[in-house]
């Protein structure tokens, strides 16, 4: 009812922390503010970047501020921009990319910044699967890659052994997967009501978006939305319906259990209650800390009946967007440019990767980590990179460019949950997802075109 007031209030809240550190900043230095959504160890890492950047140069003073969850951070940034008080940089999750690209004068894209300030940022230095997600169709970079991850299949090796499976050979295809979880159910999960053969975080990202990429099947028309706002979902195509049917069948059989939306299922694997848990590679740190069993990561399975040459998976995570404000000075953009150059250094990228469990976003950062022997000390830490660089990046595997994608993901969760309750079959589920999702895409198209 009080939407505008809520916005104004949010803006007021959003703005207040900017004012306080501003008073502390030293005279003569350009003040930079970066809003982010990182928690725990990842939050510490943002603080480290702030400290190291401030120590490395003297022209600017960077302040990193935690603003809540990804959606909260985006909402706060929007409200702040409306109030003319946006921070210079904001971390936006990958599915908010479409929204940010439609933000017109509210943001300055990386290529524009380069034109104005001459910042040295080379798109070719970035992993193609990462770069593609945050670039325009013609290859110009729109935002700065920061934290990227990709879904992997976490395996409880103790459970594999109990079930008589080879722990060194996790299922590579969905055909093998379906057989493996049956064994896991009978010989391991049946021991207690708490145990389950498999579960999945991020059903939308891990089981559908990446599934399309791996099998080179379009998720939406117009090159997954990269070539135009008039894109339409294609997820009621046979390949996707087959995957949904497989999940539903496994749920019925008791070899797969749905344990919630987004990343809420993560703890199920960590606590040892699931033999296989699909989840983000960025959960590695938490698993290493909590798991009281032997574990390993594997690349997502592919359907051997659909392809023999599986492709790369799609990234998740977030990137940094440069925001405008009425009183922004050229010196501030200059400072932003130097920060982006700083973050893009191979040494910084490698450090961030090794501290957080996100993948290195640059090829040089990956090479450096190899040279430093990081993967020998942490076997399997490069599974995500292998997953992102498998095969060749095609128009169907470089990512999704859909407006209001979080809303579309939510629709898919809702309809999938209805299917799990037996209210509709796989084909009906995906048909409804397409119909409802397209309404959202048209609304976004109208709102952006004006």
């Amino acid at each position: 009812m009080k939407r505008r007031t809520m916005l104004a209030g949010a803006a007021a809240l959003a703005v207040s922390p900017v004012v306080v550190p501003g008073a502390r900043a030293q005279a003569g230095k350009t003040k930079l503010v970066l809003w982010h959504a990182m928690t725990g160890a990842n939050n510490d890492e943002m603080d480290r970047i702030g400290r190291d950047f401030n120590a490395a140069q003297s022209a600017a003073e960077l302040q990193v501020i935690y603003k809540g969850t990804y959606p909260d951070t985006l909402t706060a940034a929007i409200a702040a921009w409306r109030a003319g008080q946006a921070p210079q940089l904001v971390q936006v999750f990958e599915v908010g990319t479409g929204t940010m690209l439609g933000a017109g004068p509210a943001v300055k894209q990386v290529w524009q910044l380069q034109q104005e300030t001459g910042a040295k940022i080379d798109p070719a230095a970035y992993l193609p699967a990462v770069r593609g997600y945050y670039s325009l169709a013609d290859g110009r970079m729109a935002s700065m890659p920061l934290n990227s991850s990709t879904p992997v299949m976490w395996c409880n090796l103790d459970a594999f052994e109990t079930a008589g499976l080879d722990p060194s050979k996790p299922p590579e295809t969905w055909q093998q997967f379906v057989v493996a979880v049956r064994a896991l159910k009978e010989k391991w999960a049946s021991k207690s009501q708490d145990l389950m053969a498999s579960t999945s975080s991020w059903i939308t990202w891990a089981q559908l978006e990446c599934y399309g990429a791996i099998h080179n099947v379009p998720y939406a028309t117009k090159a997954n939305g990269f070539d135009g706002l008039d894109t339409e979902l294609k997820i009621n195509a046979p390949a996707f319906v087959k995957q949904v049917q497989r999940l539903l069948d496994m749920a019925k059989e008791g070899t797969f259990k749905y344990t919630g939306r987004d990343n809420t299922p993560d703890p199920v694997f960590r606590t040892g209650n699931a033999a296989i848990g699909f989840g983000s590679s960025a959960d590695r740190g938490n698993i290493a800390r909590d798991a009281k069993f032997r574990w390993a990561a594997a690349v997502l399975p592919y359907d051997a009946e659909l392809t023999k040459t599986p492709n790369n998976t799609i990234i998740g995570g977030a990137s940094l967007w440069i925001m405008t404000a009425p009183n922004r000075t050229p010196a501030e953009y200059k400072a932003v440019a130097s920060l982006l150059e700083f973050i893009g250094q191979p040494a910084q990228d490698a450090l961030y990767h090794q501290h957080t469990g996100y993948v290195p976003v640059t090829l040089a950062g990956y090479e450096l980590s190899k040279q430093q022997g990081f993967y020998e000390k942490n076997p399997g830490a490069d599974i995500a990179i292998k997953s992102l660089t498998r095969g060749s990046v095609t128009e169907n595997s470089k990512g999704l460019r859909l407006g209001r994608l979080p809303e579309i993901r939510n629709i898919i969760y809702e309809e999938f949950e209805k299917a799990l309750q037996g209210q509709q079959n796989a084909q009906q589920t995906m048909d409804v997802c397409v119909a409802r999702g397209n309404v959202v895409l048209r609304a976004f198209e109208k709102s952006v075109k004006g």
Partner: protein
Amino acid sequence: MERRTIFSGWLLPVALVLPQLALTVVFFLWPAGQAIWSSATRADPFGIRTEFVGLDNLTDLFADPLYVDTVIRSVVFCVCVTVLAVSAAMALAVTADREIRFRGFYRIMLIWPYAIAPAVAAVLWILLLHPQIGLIGRWLNGIGIAWDYKINGFQAMLMVILASAWKQVSYNFIFLLAGLQSIPRSVVEAARMDGAKGFYRFRTVLLPLLMPTVFFLMVVNLVYAAFDTFGTIWAITAGGPGKATETLVVKVYRDGMVNQDVGSSSAQSVVLMVGVIVLTALQFRFLGRRSGGA
């Protein structure tokens, strides 16, 4: 008897009324006006391109069968919460009104849940009913009842109704207890002398005398269920599974704050506002008539 204060000038009365008027304008009329305006527009999240679309947002809403479902679901939810919260509080109040040991302690314990934040109440219920870590949830699964509110819409609805009603029982309890205590002892004594017992006495003597309080509570509880339960529902199910627990406020929040669709979210707020106005009008009509007739 009618009481009326006569002011000699107009300055003082205006000065006395002004603060209240200012509050109403700043905190109600202005934002409500903004909501009505933005419900007639279509804008991108950043508000860069705002287009006047008249009643499009409203007609889109009611053309959407999913929205109509949400309206019906909200009504069912509100009625269930209200009936459950008022009747549970009534049972507790009647019991607490008797001469029992530790009456003071018992009453204070009953009032506590009211002081708990919605999100905390939600966590308490999750800890009880979660299929894997919840005390009752685990037990239910252990005895062979497949309890999992994450994939069972009916169970999810049951859980949010329970959690929401539980939080409101205390509030109702205070009012009903006060209502019971204001009933003259002589009336109750007389009924007892005439041989009215137990539930019969409650139904024919206490309940009719309590009706104004009950009616007031019903309106307050309906408004509570419609608006204040957002925190509880969002923390327990976020509207899922499917749309099984998505009430109108949950949808307003999701569309406005998460999906950044300001126009549609405002239109939904306007629909809610109309609902509250109708409820309030009803309350004034009935309560006004009762006190006027007494």
